[in-house]
């Protein structure tokens, strides 16, 4: 087929414009909602619907083009590079929040407590002479009131095991795909999706406990801020990953993917390993230390 020696350049794409309009509407709606405007939620729902429509339409188009053999090896390399660098950008997004955690724990909170020879030393004497640096903390003004920090053992450790196991099952499924063992592929993916949603469920339970039993909220000073923003963004990524895995499961069930051509599977598997690695970072730096 001639398609395999020329690079496929698509024409007349409608989805990018629709997706952009949806995302813009969603964000403008969210901004309106934050400003207390009544039209906000409606705009958000409308924008989100448009965005989901784009995702469905665009990915369906990609899948059917891929299945009809329009993507040659070279197109596959472009997609892989795209996914790789997208994941790198996600790493940098998390790096900002990990950086904030590192900076506050190791520099700014000790400075508030008068530690070190930096110019920040005066802060303690002038603002909060009674504050002693410690971690976890909700700051010298004890913002958000008393709270109990989240321990590492128990649910978080269980969640670590769940995510690590899901990394194994997705690799097992990949081996099944490569060896043309359809049964192994489907079972491996079902297990991965199930473990992913189980993780999200347990995380939701952990949040419930934090809010209702431990007094730990997003408003619990810098500890609450870093804890919920880091684990929250991670949890959101797990949700997205699990949804993407479900799509891949559906496509596998429909008989898509061959040992030579399965970028969709590979891209999502990479993404899944990425959320796995971020969790390990979280477990060590947020829960354990």
């Amino acid at each position: 087929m001639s398609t395999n020696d020329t690079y496929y350049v698509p024409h007349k794409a409608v989805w990018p414009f629709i997706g952009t309009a949806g995302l813009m509407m969603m964000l403008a709606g969210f901004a309106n909602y934050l400003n207390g405007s009544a039209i906000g939620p409606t705009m958000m729902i409308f924008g989100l619907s448009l965005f989901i429509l784009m995702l469905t339409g665009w990915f369906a188009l990609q899948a059917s083009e891929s299945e009809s053999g329009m993507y040659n090896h070279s197109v596959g390399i472009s997609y892989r590079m795209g996914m790789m660098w997208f994941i790198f950008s996600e790493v940098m997004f998390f790096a900002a929040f990990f950086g904030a955690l590192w900076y506050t724990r190791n520099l700014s909170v000790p400075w508030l407590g008068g530690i070190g020879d930096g110019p920040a030393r005066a802060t303690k004497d002038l603002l909060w002479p009674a504050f002693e640096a410690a971690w976890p903390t909700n700051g010298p003004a004890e913002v958000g009131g008393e709270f109990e920090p989240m321990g590492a053992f128990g649910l978080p450790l269980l969640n670590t095991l769940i995510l690590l196991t899901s990394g194994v099952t997705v690799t097992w499924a990949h081996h099944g795909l490569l060896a043309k063992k359809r049964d192994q592929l489907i079972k491996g993916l079902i297990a991965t999706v199930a473990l992913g949603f189980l993780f999200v469920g347990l995380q939701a339970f952990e949040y419930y406990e934090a809010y209702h039993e431990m007094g730990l909220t997003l408003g619990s000073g810098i500890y609450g801020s870093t804890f919920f923003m880091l684990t929250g963004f991670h949890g959101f990524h797990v949700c997205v990953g699990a949804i993407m895995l479900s799509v891949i499961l559906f496509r596998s069930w429909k008989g898509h993917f061959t040992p030579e051509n399965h970028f969709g599977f590979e891209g999502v598997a990479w993404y899944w390993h990425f959320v796995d690695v971020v969790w390990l970072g979280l477990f060590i730096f947020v829960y354990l230390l």
Partner: protein
Amino acid sequence: MSAVIAEHDEHHDHGPAKGILRWITTTNHKDIGTMYLVFSLIMFFVGGSMALIIRAELFEPGMQFVEPQFFNSMTTMHALVMVFGAVMPAFVGLANWMIPLMIGAPDMALPRMNNMSFWMLVAGILLMASTLFMEGGGPAAGWTFYPPLVLQTGKALPFAIFAVHLLGISSIMGAINIIATIFNMRAPGMDMMKMPLFVWTWLITAFLLIAVMPVFAGAVTMLLTDRFFDTSFFDAAGGGDPVLYQHIFWFFGHPEVYIMILPTFGVASTIIPVFARKPLFGYTSMVWATGFIAFLSFIVWAHHMFTVGMPIAGELYFMYATMLIAIPTGVKIFNWTATMWKGAMTFETPMLFSIAFVVLFTLGGFTGLMMAVAPSDLQYHDTYFIVAHFHYTLVPASVFILMAAGYFWLPKWTGNMYNERIGRLHFWLSAISINILFFPQHFLGLAGMPRRIPDYAVQFADWNMISSIGAFIYGFSQLLFVYIVIDTIRGGTGKATDEVWEDASKHGLEWTLPSPTPYHTFTTPPAKIPTEHL
């Protein structure tokens, strides 16, 4: 499945769609490049008008035309529009147009995503611009969005933050596309070390974009949650630190300024050899210098924060690391000069702008070195000296080179020659007025005039008046460029040859194509790779 096959047959239909849908649905790198360039030119005038409002208010001491709050939102929006709406998109537009032509590729690697990154840019700028009409006005805390001041913004705050998110998504998608194109779409024989420098500089710029745009997104997300969701990232009472924001912001911000200057270097390295009729001097050292500058950009950020109260060890480290940047930059200035040395030079408009860039960027670089010295920076910080410094590195550098690129490639894009006489008039008016505009700001800064103020003490009056006169001459003379672009599209001074500039086809693949370039190019890879630039 039949629908898919039908769409695939369209692949052989070599014309664009008709009407407005052509631009909304296009996946063609030339169409998208054109949209980026036109959009950025419009934004250049929007941002420029804001600058003229600022300069009109500062023409004399006292309050003349605008309210202080509006003045502050003008300084903020001028910067945001120029950085995210004009300079960055203009270079992405050039990348879209030129990278596939320069490496012999049929299109960008991910054409649909290419379309999306353009429209995300428009969406982001629309959201940003809409804030000017909101209760409480546009963001007025400076383009750096420092807390706690920025948290006092009115209704505009969440819109500005989400605009940054959209612009970030747009930039990241554009950068991913550029990397995939350069790594994956080069014609056979186009080795990495044979690529034109414009391609090299954009490759490195794309890495910078992917590495830092998400960090900026993270920083503004923290602002959003601090304002609306009770977090304490930047509030010392809760254990946070406003200085933390500055660290995160400048971890993005410093690479960001190189995102605007590295492609500038690339275009200059492309234009100067053609008009000096010599190969580029020191190709390999240019590539390494670009990489080294990019690396350094990640480890010097806190030189923007010398007065904020860092430990002395931090001040010293960031001072010395910053000075290192002078080394690779010096290599580049040396190479451009050596390229011109004993060349058979002619001075067409693109070359005039490029030479002005080399001279005036050097000046801007030297004032940068002055401010790298932490103890003396305590004097310059937040004065008009820094304003003069970064405008010298952005206007007579990035903007001049963008103009040069326009003159250089317009004949290739449109098939017509531009009016050289008006081009040179545009150049001389710009080059003279830009110095009237920004040079006095050095004196103002050294004399102690703070930046971002609508009124000032009377001893600053004379230089401010001169600066404002320069601003209006510069601003209105840019209309000549618009005239030339429209005139060239309509026929200009006659048909351009395929090569356009003498012997240009030895310097780059784009000059081996017909003028104007057909809608689809290099559907089969080129037979021979030019190597004159090596």
